[in-house]
């Protein structure tokens, strides 16, 4: 009985991230539009977009291979699994030990690997430019992310995300310089990984500076729907990650009852809304940077994360 309940909670978490992901993106778009004094699309527009794309036929380039057709499902699956492994409303779910934070980062790496390959499959210059820039960005963002993981792991004594979140919610944490640095670095990495302004612009298809959109230019119909869905999930994943580590309040514990689960879910929605508003304000306030300024931006994140880790090696209390 207990096992069934645990599985139900785990399944609820998987469906929750799946259902909430488009809503978060819609919310960010709405807030951005309101900040620009536009009406903006409806909150549920991303769901409608997904449904519309799924119903349309796929137009496949003549020389697209099987890899091109499999990739959308692989990316969606890897991102979904990664997103479902991040604690949203509760820690210590049944399968939370399947992958620790390092493995979650690497799962996203797998998704990116296949997306970059799919960009090169058709053999157009657009796909190539997108893929080559994507791997350049990843080659800096991934080490930065891993160094952030190191900092968190050194503070909490674990790479297990549930343990990290539980530790961050306990009073032992205190104010630490290294955690501040990690937070800033994590936000920078999250912005880059999700192709948001100032690294990439999610709402353009016509600029030579685009990265993510260039890779998926040849996709259409249900394939595009899967990739878009994966992108929504990835945004949700990073927001969940930041909120479960740095805003761990309200998370239900290991042996929690339905009441604390409900409380955790409400707190989670609040955190999502807060992060969404902050992201929208940030994106509205700054301009997109040139693609070769991105290494400086990510290099700064990398250095901050490295500095945070070094500080922790110097003293565990910093």
């Amino acid at each position, binding site marked *: 009985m207990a096992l069934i309940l645990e599985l139900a909670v785990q399944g609820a978490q998987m469906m929750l991230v799946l259902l909430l992901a488009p809503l978060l993106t819609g919310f960010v778009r709405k807030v951005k539009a309101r900040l620009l004094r536009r009406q903006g699309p409806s909150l549920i527009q991303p769901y409608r977009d997904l449904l519309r794309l799924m119903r349309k036929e796929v137009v496949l380039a003549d*020389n697209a291979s099987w890899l091109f057709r499999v990739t959308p499902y692989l990316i969606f699956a890897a991102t979904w699994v990664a997103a479902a492994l991040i604690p949203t409303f509760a820690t210590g779910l049944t399968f939370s030990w399947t992958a*620790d934070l390092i493995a979650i980062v690497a799962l996203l790496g797998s998704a990116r690997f296949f997306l970059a390959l799919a960009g090169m499959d058709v053999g157009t*210059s657009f796909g190539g430019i997108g893929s*080559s820039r994507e*791997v350049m960005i990843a080659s800096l963002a991934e080490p930065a992310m*891993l160094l952030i993981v190191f900092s968190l*792991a050194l503070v909490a004594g674990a790479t297990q995300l549930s343990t990290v979140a539980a530790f961050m919610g306990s009073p032992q944490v205190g104010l630490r310089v290294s955690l501040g640095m990690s937070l800033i670095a994590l936000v920078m990495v999250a912005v880059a990984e999700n192709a948001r302004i100032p690294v990439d612009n999610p709402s353009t298809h016509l600029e030579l500076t685009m990265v993510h959109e260039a890779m998926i230019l040849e996709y259409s119909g*249900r394939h595009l729907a899967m990739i878009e869905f994966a992108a929504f999930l990835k945004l949700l994943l990073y927001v969940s990650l930041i909120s479960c580590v740095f805003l761990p309040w309200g998370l239900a514990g290991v042996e929690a009852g339905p009441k604390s689960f409900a409380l955790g879910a409400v707190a989670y929605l609040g955190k999502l809304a807060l992060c969404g508003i902050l992201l929208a304000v940030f994106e509205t306030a700054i301009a997109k940077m040139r693609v070769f300024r991105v290494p400086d931006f990510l290099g700064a994140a990398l250095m901050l994360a490295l500095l945070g880790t*070094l500080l*922790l090696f110097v003293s565990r209390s910093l």
Partner: protein
Amino acid sequence: MISGAAVLLWGVAALLGTAVLAIASSHGSGSGTRLIYSLTLGISAAVLLVLASRVADDPVTPSTAELPLGLPWIGAHFRLDALSTFFLVVVNFGGGMASLYGLGYGRHESAPHRVLPFFPAFLAGMNLVVLADDAFTFLLSWEFMSLASWALVMAHHREQDNARAGYIYLVMASFGTLALLLAFGLLAGPSGNYTFEAMRAAASAPLVAAFVLALMLLGAGSKAGLVPLHIWLPLAHPAAPSHVSALMSGVMTKVAIYGFIRVIFDLLGEPAWWSGVVVLFLGGLTAVLGILYALMEKDLKRLLAYSTIENVGVIFVSLGLALAFKANAMPSAAALALTAALFHVLNHSFFKSLLFFGAGAVLTATGERDMEKLGGLIHRMPLTSFAFLVGCVAISALPPFNGFVSEWLAFQAVLQSPDLPQWGLKVMVPAVGGLLALSAALAAACFVKAFGITFLGRPRSAAVELAHEVDRYSLAAMFTLAALCLLAGIVPGLVIDGLSAVTLPLLGSRMPVQMAEPWLSIVPIAASRSSYNGLLVFLFIAVSGSFAAFVIHRFASHALRRGPAWGCGFPDVTPAAQYTSISFAQPIRRVFGAFAFRAREKVEVPAPGETGPARLTVEIHDVIWETFYLPIGRAIDFATDHLNHLQFLTIRRYLTLVFLFLIVLLLVLALWP
């Protein structure tokens, strides 16, 4: 009962017999090739069976054998313990797979009499190095292995650059053996007992130990490809036939690592803490520079060879961590780091063999190694490309494949290191952890490029249009390795538990038993700290991917239409307009190139009105070659030029020289304290 080591010596003898047979029969054509590779395949399989029975029976108790060969009053000693058992598995499994691949690939060989005799000899040499239990046998086998592989590198000696590759390899190999010779001389000490037994018993003074470490880094490091001693590797490995390249990259570098572990962890006794710093630094440098060089490469086999350098760096990082932990009496953390290193040794032998086999298949099908002339092979060679893709994902350290597991274990070992007391290590370890992460990310970029340019896109030359799938032996070898890459990724506990027999005698500790964990997770320390379950990750991805595909195809559209790719309004763009390997690496070259290659780009745009083409010139320097090797080469040229006239002296002057030298020697003896 006959001991394990003696049985394996029979295996070596059989390999040498095969080599002799190959000399006798090599002028026969196809049947000779098939005979030799079948024999080596059979011998490797038999040796693996012997090793398997040993592992099942009792892997820890060493078994020894002695032959009345070698130096008269010493004899040749051989010993089989857990460490050598592990490396023998790597050697013979790699050898067996290369033989299986050779059954098909060898038929395309233009000069079989230059390959067939040396292939079994090379395998025998590697087996002997791992079995050797005294310095003389070790060095002799080491030289035998080097020379056999040199002969294989020179198999196609008339091709451009191969002679130069062979020459540089020979020089570096001799240099490495010289360093090893001196290291063993120091270990043997004044008593001059050359058995490993005696060296293990004798304690070395700290200064001697430091020299031994430096000499082993030079000797074993040059064979393994540590930066800056790697320069021969990307020349020599690709020059050999592809299954030999796979052996050299996947297995021979591992034999070098075996030599390093044997001396530093087993014979030398307690390490000093700073030895960890040195090994960590060299490992981190090797990993990042190796993969950056690989990214700049457009020759598929050279790219793979440079990536071998990166992986050797990763292994040395883990070894450095193990040394640091061992020096500070943290045996369980040391066991974790050494397990990570050995796991990566096994993984790299799987996926690098697989990738070289794939490159060989591409070479057979198209005659091209240059990626700029390939492309679109996924349509022509679907099976090869699938196996190659598995290798690419595995080597990029992506879950759920095996490369990720060893990388993950290395990161877990890094996270153990804040407890280390020395400041040098405290600063070095996180920096090297960052370098490790950087090299993993760059490796993913490199293999996106390798697979994307070679197999995806549109064909860049006519040769690709005519390519077709390779024979079934080659495919069998590739698919076996691909399956093992996945298997070691989803059931890593099996490998980790197997490795515990190796770490236990070397470090006095082992990782906790993994196969007893629920759901086959791996848990290095405690479940609340870190755990990873490749099996569940794989299942979750498979299930959720199929679920998504099923739901969409069942409830939404499954209509599909083919059309031309979007060409921005330009119809029929030529395949030359695709991204090439050089252009793919351009963003990364801009980020890292200035410091790693002194890369410079020059754009020449003709003045308005002129009709000449615009030109983009990229200048890349091999900084290590130019700063270390060219000056040495110039100095040797200079010295030989100026010493040349010593050849034309009169007899009186020669006698004077000899006399003066004698006096100098006597003076040295007299003044020596």
